[in-house]
């Protein structure tokens, strides 16, 4: 019965950097390739902190695949990289230039709407020549199977399509990865949640206030006690005429602390340290959020099944190790390798071997070793153990620990700059909060400034986003407070005492008592996927072209 369906040699789902790299590589090898993107335009569903790297050791780089990429699609290069350890108003800044430049050919800040739509135009041109092309506004909602085998995809807007290979580059909330049972959304500790504000700033003011030449830029990271003990940190990147400022937290920590993501972002935005850059002016263009897989735990070691190959966030390929946050470059490598694997398998007359070949290429090219460092796995059992954490916290905060921090000032900066050490940073409070706080308390200088900018309230942030509302795409399976209450705080567009968000707390009268429940309205949803993990939901994406539309991303 699948004989009547439309057929393409390759179907690539998602037109982000991973999908674009895969499609371009397939097209260059003459494979007939169809790319399906669910946003109205590529980039309209995408959010990232905003740095894309080209690594010297990588098998593929985005500008290698798309000439003119840096001129056409990026904001500013990031030449300097700092981390600010914060304790109250005391700050100690380390220069992380060494770790930033390690294995780095170049690194640019990007805004995803601009970047991905630029890529999509070129992907369409190149794939069109193979008889395929790129379509936006089409949501792939599942895998097409014939007698249990994956043979293609099903779409909301199109009839089913068969393919010899399906490359799922459909992002962190990949419906195809879930359909295949390769990824689940069970464990909050495998995820980060990122929240970002894009803030307007005139190009001249960016040059001036960040002390960078025109067409150059800088990255600042923030950690310490600004975030109520929630494990994570903040970032600020300079764009051409704006700033990307955001926070990234471990989702389990965010959930456990019942923290409000938008408030944590505001803690960063209103810290005195940022006054030097804002100088009292603050105009927010866009508020956005996304989940980030923690590749140390979530990167699938064998990201394929039958004809399905996963790349990028869909496969958990997002490297977040301390101050290193790299995702898009790995998606590009994986996309290129997946495409290469299929083209080779096909030319050997055995397209079914593409998955195994892809897995081997990820190993051979060192991609998997970077995403899931053995060092982390080996040390994790000890370093993340509760007793060890408590002991370390105690020592650090003791007179001896503080003396150590003071004595090893230079060594600490070197330690932060070591890719080797960063690969085994334990995911505990100690790394994210205590060390930076003690460093700032012992070595930092107080910031003498007042930052009186007022970031917009949550309802204004939601109101500024563009939506084309379709049918509700998330269903609450269990609305009890115990099962889904965490979503009220952890959802970046919901908050306690706020009636305009996705998740709201409600008290209903029952026989002889009251019951605390959760209600859901998907209208303001930014499709980050947080509630799929912290609440009991049936979570799908909205139909093609529907839902939130990011202008910046």
């Amino acid at each position, binding site marked *: 019965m699948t004989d009547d369906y*439309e057929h*393409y040699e390759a179907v690539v789902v998602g037109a982000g950097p991973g999908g674009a790299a895969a499609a371009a590589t397939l097209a260059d090898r003459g494979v007939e390739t*169809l790319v*399906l993107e669910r946003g109205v335009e590529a980039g309209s569903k995408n959010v990232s902190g905003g740095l894309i790297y080209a690594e010297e050791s990588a098998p593929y780089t985005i500008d290698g695949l798309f000439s003119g990429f840096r001129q056409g699609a990026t904001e500013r290069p990031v030449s300097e990289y700092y981390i600010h350890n914060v304790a109250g108003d005391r700050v100690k800044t380390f220069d992380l230039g060494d770790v930033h430049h390690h294995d780095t050919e170049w690194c640019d800040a990007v805004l995803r709407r601009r970047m991905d739509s630029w890529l999509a135009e070129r992907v*369409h041109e190149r794939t*069109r020549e193979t008889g*395929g*092309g790129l*379509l936006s506004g*089409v949501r792939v909602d599942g895998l097409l199977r014939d007698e249990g085998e994956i043979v293609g995809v099903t779409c909301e*807007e*199109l*009839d089913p*399509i068969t393919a010899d290979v399906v490359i799922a580059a459909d992002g962190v909330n990949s419906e195809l990865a879930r359909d295949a049972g390769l990824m689940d959304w069970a464990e909050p500790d495998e995820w980060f949640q990122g929240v970002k504000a894009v803030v307007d700033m005139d190009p001249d003011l960016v040059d001036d206030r960040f002390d960078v030449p025109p067409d150059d830029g800088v990255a600042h990271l923030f950690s310490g006690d600004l975030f109520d003990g929630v494990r994570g940190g903040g970032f600020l990147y300079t764009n051409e005429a704006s700033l990307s400022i955001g926070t990234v937290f471990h989702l389990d920590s965010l959930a456990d602390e019942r923290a409000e993501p938008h408030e944590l972002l505001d803690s960063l935005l209103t810290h005195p340290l940022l006054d030097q850059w804002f100088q009292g002016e603050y105009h927010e263009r866009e508020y956005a959020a996304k989940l980030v897989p923690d590749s140390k735990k979530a990167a699938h070691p064998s990201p394929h099944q039958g004809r399905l190959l996963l790349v990028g966030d869909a496969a958990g390929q997002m490297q977040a190790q301390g101050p290193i946050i790299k995702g898009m470059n790995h998606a590009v490598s994986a996309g290129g390798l997946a495409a290469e694997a299929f083209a080779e398998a096909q030319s050997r007359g055995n397209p079914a071997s593409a998955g195994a070949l892809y897995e081997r290429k990820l190993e051979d090219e060192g991609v998997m070793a970077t995403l899931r460092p053995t060092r982390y796995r080996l040390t994790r059992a000890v370093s993340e153990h509760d007793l060890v954490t408590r002991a370390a916290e105690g020592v650090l905060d003791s007179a001896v620990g503080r003396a150590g921090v003071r004595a090893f000032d230079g060594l600490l900066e070197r330690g932060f700059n070591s890719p080797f050490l960063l690969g085994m940073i334990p995911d505990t409070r100690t790394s994210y909060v205590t060390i930076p706080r003690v460093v700032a308390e012992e070595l930092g200088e107080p910031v003498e400034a007042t930052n009186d900018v007022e970031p917009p309230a949550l309802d204004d942030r939601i109101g500024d986003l563009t939506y084309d509302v379709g049918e509700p795409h998330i269903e609450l399976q269990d609305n009890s407070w115990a099962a889904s209450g965490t979503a009220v705080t952890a959802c970046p567009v919901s908050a306690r005492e706020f009636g305009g968000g996705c998740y709201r707390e409600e008290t209903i009268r029952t026989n002889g008592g009251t019951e605390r429940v959760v209600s859901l309205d998907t209208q303001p949803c930014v499709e980050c996927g947080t509630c799929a993990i912290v609440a009991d939901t049936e979570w799908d994406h909205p139909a093609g072209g529907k839902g939130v539309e990011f202008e910046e991303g």
Partner: protein
Amino acid sequence: MTIDTLVLTKGVPDFREGQVSFDEDGHLERGKTPTVMNPNDKHALRAALQTKVRNGGSVSLMSMGPPSYAEILEEGMADVYADELYLLSDREMGAADTWATAMTIATGIQHLEAPPDLIFAGFKTADGETGHTGPQAEWCLGIHDDLPDYPLITHVVAIDIDEAEGVVRTKRLVEGDVAEIETVEADLPAFVVADPEFEPTYRRADHRLRHKDFREQTRARAAEFGEYLAEDSEEDPTDWEDFNMWDHDYLNLDPDFIGLDGSPTIVAGVDPIPKAPSEREATVVGPDDEDGMAEIYEEMAAYAGGD
């Protein structure tokens, strides 16, 4: 096999708020009101576009009106990715009623290089509101012995062409006490009047990709034609290869049977339509007015069940 289609369209005053202008007596001020493509014709364009995308072939646009209607055709071309544009334009054709218009249009169709496989018209114009011109043009086609028979299907909301069988299958909306959808099949060629409820469907990726190709090609062509239409252009629009302007001589039409002279309709006078008196009464209830709120609640409760 491919399907060549023709879409009939008309320029009408832009009746949208802010565009339209009436004098004190309620008469339309034609000079102060811009002309746009008849909004209902967009549905005919979408039906033709679906045919072009799904079945291949060409789309032509035809209109009757003053030379300035070239802009209406340009607008339509950008919408439907049309290949050829035809404007029947001549002072002798002016002030025609639906009958004289239908006669002229049918003769225009007769003069096409080959009879189209499908002719599309929109459902009534925003100025005349008669809904006659399309069906009358279909009738007038029968006058010309050299044209094939065109069965007429009106109120079409969906269309599917079976090229192997040489038939068009349509769904048409029949509005009575209950709206019904009727399935009607006709041999090609056929004349189809698209209903405002017409929805094109593109369920195959290759259709959508072809749609995208057409969009890009047409953007370039529309820009090219636009240069001919620009006020400061030294070229005449008719110099553009795909724009054809035909007068009554070319069509071999007797002036007595077209335009005002060929129109049996006599307009005795025009009365402005009086504004309908408002039947609703508004009551303002403040947010703190508990009694008022309670009354509203009582009032609305009856409708809450969906009755």
